[in-house]
């Protein structure tokens, strides 16, 4: 079926024969950038949005405070084992967690990650008006990490918090695409959910049932 390509492309070209030279122009990139104002006020907005999605959010002073807050969150959810993404902030916070069984996700076989209670990920970007975080996973283990464990923790610096999904907020995705990074850039907004049964909301569909985002002022 090597000629399927030629047949499809020929059919497309032929179908568009009437348009040639009269196509709609490429529209300029629509950038609805908003002046977010004070970043800490934005963090409050982020927290409101994420809480409405049944997630948890905290703004902390530094990495140490972050590790402490994460620890409390994990104890509250009876977490014992944590698998960490191979990203610097996540690794640093993980190294300061005590009383938990912490492993690098990449050290485990991806299917073994099913047995971990919690994932610890890094946000490359945070979007205040939707309470969402952008995570970039470029290897097999980091890719399954956001979905398999029952609880998920995402840590990110206040400096990567944006008001809305404008072009600058997805710069991390654009850069990853430009350098031909493998894997996936994931925007995640709260714990997984479904309303497929009678439109009744249920959390923890296939992905995590609990999600905590920790925003670090001086990461």
């Amino acid at each position: 079926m090597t000629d399927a390509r030629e047949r499809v492309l020929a059919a497309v070209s032929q179908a568009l024969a009437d348009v040639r030279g009269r196509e709609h122009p490429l529209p300029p990139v629509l950038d609805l950038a908003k002046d977010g104002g004070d970043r800490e006020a934005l963090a409050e907005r982020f927290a409101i949005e994420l809480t409405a999605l049944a997630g948890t959010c905290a703004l902390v002073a530094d990495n140490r405070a972050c590790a402490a807050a994460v620890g409390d969150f994990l104890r509250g959810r009876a977490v014992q084992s944590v698998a960490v993404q191979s990203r610097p902030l996540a690794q640093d916070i993980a190294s300061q967690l005590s009383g938990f069984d912490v492993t690098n996700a990449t050290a485990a076989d991806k299917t073994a990650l099913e047995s971990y209670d919690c994932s610890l990920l890094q946000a490359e970007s945070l979007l205040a008006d939707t309470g969402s975080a952008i995570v970039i996973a470029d290897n097999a283990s980091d890719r399954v990490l956001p979905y398999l464990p029952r609880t998920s923790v995402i840590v990110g610096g206040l400096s990567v918090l944006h008001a809305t999904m404008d072009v600058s907020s997805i710069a991390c995705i654009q850069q990853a695409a430009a350098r031909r990074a493998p894997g996936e850039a994931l925007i995640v907004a709260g714990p997984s959910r479904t309303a497929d049964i009678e439109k009744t909301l249920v959390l923890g569909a296939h992905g995590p049932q609990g999600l905590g985002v920790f925003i670090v002022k001086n990461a």
Partner: protein
Amino acid sequence: MARDISNANRRSNDSEGLIAHDVARAFQRPDAPQVLTQTLEHSVDNAHRAREQIEWQALRSAAHDIKAYAIENLDSLLVEFERQFAARGGTVVWAQTAGEGVAQLLEICRRHDVRSVVKGKSMLSEELAVNEHLESAGIEPVETDLGEFIVQLAGQRPSHIVGPALHLSRQDVGTIFQRRLGTEYTDDPEQLMTLARVRLRKRYLEAGLGLTGVNFAVAETGTIAVIENEGNGGLSSSVPPVHVFLMGIEKIIPRLADLPVFLQVLARSATGQKIEVYTHHFLGAEPGKTVYCIIVDANRTKLLADPQTRESLYCIRCGACLNVCPVYRRAGGFAYGGTYGGPIGAAIAPTLSGMDRAGELPFVSTLCGACRDECPVKIDLPHQLVYLRHQAILAGRPNSRALETGIAMWARAMQTLSSYRRSVSWLRRAAAVGRAIGWYPGVLGAWAKFRTVPPVARVSFKEWWERRS
């Protein structure tokens, strides 16, 4: 393809579902449960609330314009997408027909010795009847989206683009799980979800291949965006060693920077959320992973070739038009007899599945236009429907015999004042007879069964005006 007349009045067993004749009948017995209207009214209200917080009109105009450009430059953009996708470790395969699409998938399964496939939600896989073909080849398809999982267990087809199991009550689901999974009966949605989650965990971990649809394919970078709430799409694509994307040619958008426009209108139209829980941007094949993208035409180039129907390719499959359609709410998804229901289904099915199967769908509408108001990419859906009605007439497809003859006759009578007046006299006599015997033939009978028939005025306006002068 010659139609098998022996099946003319029977429900077809193949994936295409009901044939034209049955489609008309299905709408004459609308039987969607009342709860569907309430559910969808709620969805529409949520969507409207969600849109109040964004520049809705600016975004939908932008979405429309980006799609217009993309569709008109589809040949060059498809080639660019293929180049960029391949540069990041993926393999693009092409399919002109549904059959070729299935064959490509089966070949990939064979190559990688796949025994079971975990599936994220994909309308296109429904359209191609992927599950049936996999089963015939001895490969087990496992639907992972909760709604799709439920209808798969029930042996049914999905009834709505976004909520496949909306036609089932929680009690129905409890019974289905009890019978098919052997679990203890429960109708608590949370417990039902947990049962599904546990059951599916194993399936993700053992599957040889994950199959997902595509929401948007970016030509500039070969990036594919897939959007979902449950996480099953993420698991289906990240756990198994092989991942296959199944995509229609129309999913292309030009630039990565165009994605935010679509992401912002999609959730707010589909579910009334501000954003869905997971927006995956597949960048490239990571070490140890094999990734394919099967690009399928399956009659989309026919929609493309007609400048009038081209706009229907802008659709981003949000389901908003279904949610607001008074016909969909009352008849439900199954009445449409195919993969795509609601106004968009009526707009594309006659071309994708053929006039024989779906040519009646554009007629099952009052052309009220509520769908056009909701559409995040501003497709003029009523225009699509009335244009397809015209195409049906050109193709010699009868509306219905009596009505057909009636309309043609009446239109001719309207061409001169004298024939108009003769028609009015005829109408007066027929109405008098009808009133006298209390019965009206044909289409008037269909009116009179539920509604009183207005009397023909003794003095028409023309007569009144003439007497004045």
